[in-house]
């Protein structure tokens, strides 16, 4: 960051992702790319892990006011201010990782439009890797039937609803409390992104893992406050757009990678995790149908916009499946 002070323009970039996550690395790449493309005239100063002191649920307002120039936007965090955004995508939406790439353009368009309503310009972003999502338990569990006797930690209201429909007791527990909750047995299982479970030391408090479905990962868009955008020269705007698009294409190409997932799984096994059979096809079927019902409920709660987004995305998914 030392060179940042000699640049013509320095943009403050907020990211809520911990630096241990691959997404953070791509944001750094974006910053380097912008610097290179502008010969150092335009600099992106990335603040990882929320180190600007900003919290995700506030980001739409903050960008609208222009208190920070740029942010990595992850649509699922904004349900307080923009409930329709939580209708864009939901866990259980896809059963195969490739489906994600097919529905991705639709999702990107919706986000671009919705963020624009908040005075936020989107310029590409990070297509998050389609990680495995699994259930990580202290005792073996690899079916919905098994989970009915357990307490499961999940990360969203949609997932609470989905599991409740399946007769499984689920609760949202903040990520910082998850380790202790599993260690002491407040919950028995965590529904989590298996591939990155090691970064939060999940392997130390759970011994068994069973795969459910690929992560329906809302892409992490690069958002620029319109207030900042309007102060940029045309050249600078173009640089940002090109760099954003380049990272988008690069990460899109890397997103689905069975080899990466297999390697990560081997790594977890070497850490002492016992890999159980994945959830059966009929269980996944059941999970998906519950997830769609819960998804629709959330979309309805968000009003007309939410419902039309839900219809558009689910229509696209069904179209792809045929």
């Amino acid at each position, binding site marked *: 960051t030392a060179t940042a002070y000699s640049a013509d323009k320095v943009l403050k970039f907020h990211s809520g992702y911990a630096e241990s996550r691959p997404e953070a690395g791509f944001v750094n790449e974006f910053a380097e790319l912008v610097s290179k493309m502008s010969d150092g005239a335009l600099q992106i100063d990335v603040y990882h892990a929320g180190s600007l002191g900003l919290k995700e649920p506030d980001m739409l307002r903050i960008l609208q006011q222009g208190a920070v120039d740029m942010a990595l936007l992850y649509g699922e965090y904004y349900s*307080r201010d*923009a409930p329709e955004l939580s209708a864009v995508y939901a866990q259980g939406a896809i059963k195969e990782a490739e489906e994600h790439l097919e529905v991705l353009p639709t999702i990107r368009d919706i986000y671009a439009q919705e963020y624009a309503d908040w005075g936020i310009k989107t310029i590409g972003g990070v297509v998050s890797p389609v990680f495995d999502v699994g259930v990580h338990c202290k005792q073996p569990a690899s079916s919905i039937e098994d989970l009915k006797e357990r*307490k499961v930690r999940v990360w969203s209201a949609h997932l609470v609803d989905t599991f409740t429909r399946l007769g499984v007791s689920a609760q949202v527990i903040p990520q910082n409390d998850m380790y202790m909750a599993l260690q002491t047995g407040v919950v028995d299982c965590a529904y989590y992104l298996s591939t990155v479970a090691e970064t939060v030391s999940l392997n130390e408090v759970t011994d068994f893992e069973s795969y459910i479905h690929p992560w329906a990962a809302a892409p992490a868009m690069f958002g620029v406050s319109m207030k900042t955008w309007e102060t940029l020269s045309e050249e600078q705007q173009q640089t940002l757009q090109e760099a954003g698009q380049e990272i988008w294409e690069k990460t899109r190409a890397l997103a689905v990678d069975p080899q990466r997932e297999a390697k990560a799984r081997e790594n977890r096994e070497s850490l002492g995790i016992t890999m159980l059979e994945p959830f059966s096809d009929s269980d996944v079927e059941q999970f998906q149908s519950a997830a769609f019902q819960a998804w629709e409920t959330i979309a309805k709660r968000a009003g007309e916009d939410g419902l039309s987004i839900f219809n558009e995305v689910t229509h696209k998914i069904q179209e792809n499946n045929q």
Partner: protein
Amino acid sequence: MKTAYKIIDKLVYWMFLAGVVSGIFMTALVFVSTLMRYLFNSPVHFSNELAGLLFLSITFLTIPHVLNIDRHIKIDLVVKKLPSRIKNPVGVFASMVMIIFSLVFIYESWGFMNFSRLISSRSDISGILLWPWMILMPLSFVMCVVVKIKHACLFRGADEVNRLVVEEKS
């Protein structure tokens, strides 16, 4: 004037009592939800969220009364050592700090609440409408300003009172 003071005292005290009740309710809520999860495997999904909102309520409902009875924490080490002729201006400055802080806070928190009301922001899990809770923030500091004004008026009359107290003691 005395009735006005009494009304202010009562008002902030009722707010305070509402804050105490929020605290009791929060304790009970967390307790019940913990037991429900442990004994019946059915946690109260919204308990953390609601507990958070009650926590906010305790804070903002009680700040004015605590200001009124002068129980907020200050650093008065320097002030104590000042010669008495500049004690008063410093005291006025200290009051201005509280009042200016309150005014900025009222302005910004009102904007925050009003914006949330316009887009009807709701809590994540239980969908509780948020602006009625948010309005506690400006309300609290409006009452703080009122209390500060009351203190200032009392302070002007304090010389009179001091004289009476001294007479009574002697």
